[in-house]
């Protein structure tokens, strides 16, 4: 983007000195372009392979995509053909029942987060390299965390529904297990990064392991713990909305029924309720997190 009408003020190098520089620039540019092309080709090949495995063709994609707008059109209409927002009373006809189920969902998320976080706090100290010198228990705790967070919470819920019976209890337990895994890892990392000064001070007074964890480590990690727990609460409420799909309580059961039975207005009403709730919890928890000092950003 040079402007030729302006006088040239900067001094160019003589051609003899400039040529090798230009050549090396061109070489490095060619190299980085080749690398980018290679990356692009690999990605395209992988995408095609994945599409072949998942049995997706571009033709299918475009023929089915038309259904998307018509589906959302149906979501926006009541049974008598009027738009949903013109008649909110008819749209939210089941609001009493839905609000109760929503409360159940939030309660499942809260209980699961609370108990899971408490257990994760206790276990995080024995998982941390700097507080627990016993590598065997440390290994066990860390692998346990990994197992809890890798198996999806819905799989736990499926198994628990068979064991404990249909209802919110398996949902709560599944969320507890997943929370232990997810928070346990983050908590342990926080403990491993503390300032060891207070811990050494307590060791010098002859304090036991519990006292060291309580007075040496906990005050340092508490803001981080709370912040991660709030973040997890939001995630857990969201996953509590789907626990009902497998019979583990909450609003998911109702949502699945209306989707399976094509009650379009009900689907959109429940979705609106879920979106608004999650949205508010998101705002609330992020406000609280900003207030805590040293809040982790993500």
């Amino acid at each position, binding site marked *: *983007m*040079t*402007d030729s009408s302006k006088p040239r003020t900067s001094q160019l190098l003589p051609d003899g000195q400039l040529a090798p520089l230009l050549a090396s620039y061109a070489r490095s540019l060619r190299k980085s372009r080749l690398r980018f092309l290679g990356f692009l080709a690999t990605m395209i090949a*992988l*995408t095609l*392979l*994945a*599409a072949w*495995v*998942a*049995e*997706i063709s571009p033709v*299918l*994609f475009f023929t*089915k995509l038309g*259904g*998307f707008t018509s*589906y959302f059109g149906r979501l926006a209409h009541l049974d008598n053909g009027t738009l949903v927002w013109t008649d909110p009373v008819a749209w939210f006809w089941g609001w009493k029942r839905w609000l109760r189920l929503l409360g*159940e969902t939030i*309660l*499942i998320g*809260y*209980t699961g987060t*609370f*108990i899971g976080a408490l257990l994760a706090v206790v276990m995080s100290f024995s998982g941390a390299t700097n507080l627990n010198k016993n590598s065997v228990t440390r290994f066990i705790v860390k692998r346990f965390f990994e*197992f809890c967070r*890798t*198996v*999806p919470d*819905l*799989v736990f819920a*499926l*198994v*628990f529904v*068979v*064991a*404990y*019976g249909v*209802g*919110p*209890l398996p949902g*709560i337990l599944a969320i507890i297990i997943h929370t232990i895994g997810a928070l346990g890892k983050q908590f342990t990392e926080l403990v491993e990064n503390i300032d060891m000064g207070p811990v050494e001070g307590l060791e010098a007074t*002859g304090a036991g392991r519990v006292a060291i964890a309580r007075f040496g480590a906990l005050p340092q990690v508490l803001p981080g713990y709370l912040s991660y727990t709030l973040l997890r609460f939001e995630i857990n409420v*969201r996953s509590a*909305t*789907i626990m009902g*799909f*497998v019979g583990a*309580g909450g609003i998911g059961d109702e*949502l*699945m029924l209306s*989707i399976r039975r*094509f009650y379009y207005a009900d689907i959109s009403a429940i*979705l609106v309720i*879920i*979106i608004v709730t*999650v*949205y508010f919890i*998101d705002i609330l928890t992020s406000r609280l997190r900003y207030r805590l000092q040293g809040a982790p950003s*993500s």
Partner: protein
Amino acid sequence: MNFPKIWPQPDIAAMSKSYPAIMGPSIVRRSATIALCVLALSPLVLAWQMFGISWAQLVHGTVQLGQFVVLMFPPTPSRFFWLFLYALGETVAIAFLGTVGAAVLAVPFSLLAARNVMPFTLVRVVVKRSFDTIRSVDTLIWALIWIGVVGLGPFAGVLAIMTSDFGAFGKLFTETLETADTKPVEGIASTGGGALASLRFALLPQIMPVIVGQILYFFESNTRSATIIGVVGAGGIGLHLYEEIRTLEWQIVCFIVIMILITVAIIDQISTRLRRAFIGI
């Protein structure tokens, strides 16, 4: 606490007199703490009452769960090993396509939502709120909706992961763009570069490593979510897992879970290595 006799015993009474704040917090603070604990615990009591949970149910269920765990060993695929392996391949393919598709879609939209790229507040707010709305709905709900649109199968799964990740990526990419250093942008502007040039040569090089890192991280976490979207019929290993749990074939369930764990561990390794290669940490 036992102090060796050679040291003078600490005079606790005198110490609490001179340092009241250290030796014992005030009644106000203590009661505030207790009140906060009661407040935090009350939903738990409510849950116990409202859900009608009983100790008998807890004990009975836990005993039964213990029996299931015993029945899980030794894990066996029965005669379905290749079927499960193919389904796992499908799961990984769903996760891959969903992640790539979401990232490709989210990049242009995050440009529309970033404060330092998009000058119109209205557009920014609309795009950001759309990201939030999409993010509030769980992947599995999206899967059910997409099944209603395109029918049962892995295609619905891909679209579900693509949709929910679009919201998450959009938010993350926007934040990355907004926290980018302004110096390179000023540099480009000072040489007479336009908006497009500053995007390409000042912003993109800054956000690219972060974006690639996020995509790789999401690919790993999507492999995990893709294992369960089969539960509602959106393809992958989830359907088999659901069937085997419902028919109480615990040995096969255990085998499938182990297969999932191994797959996720492999993907985790690959994505960590690639992330290191791209970002250098």
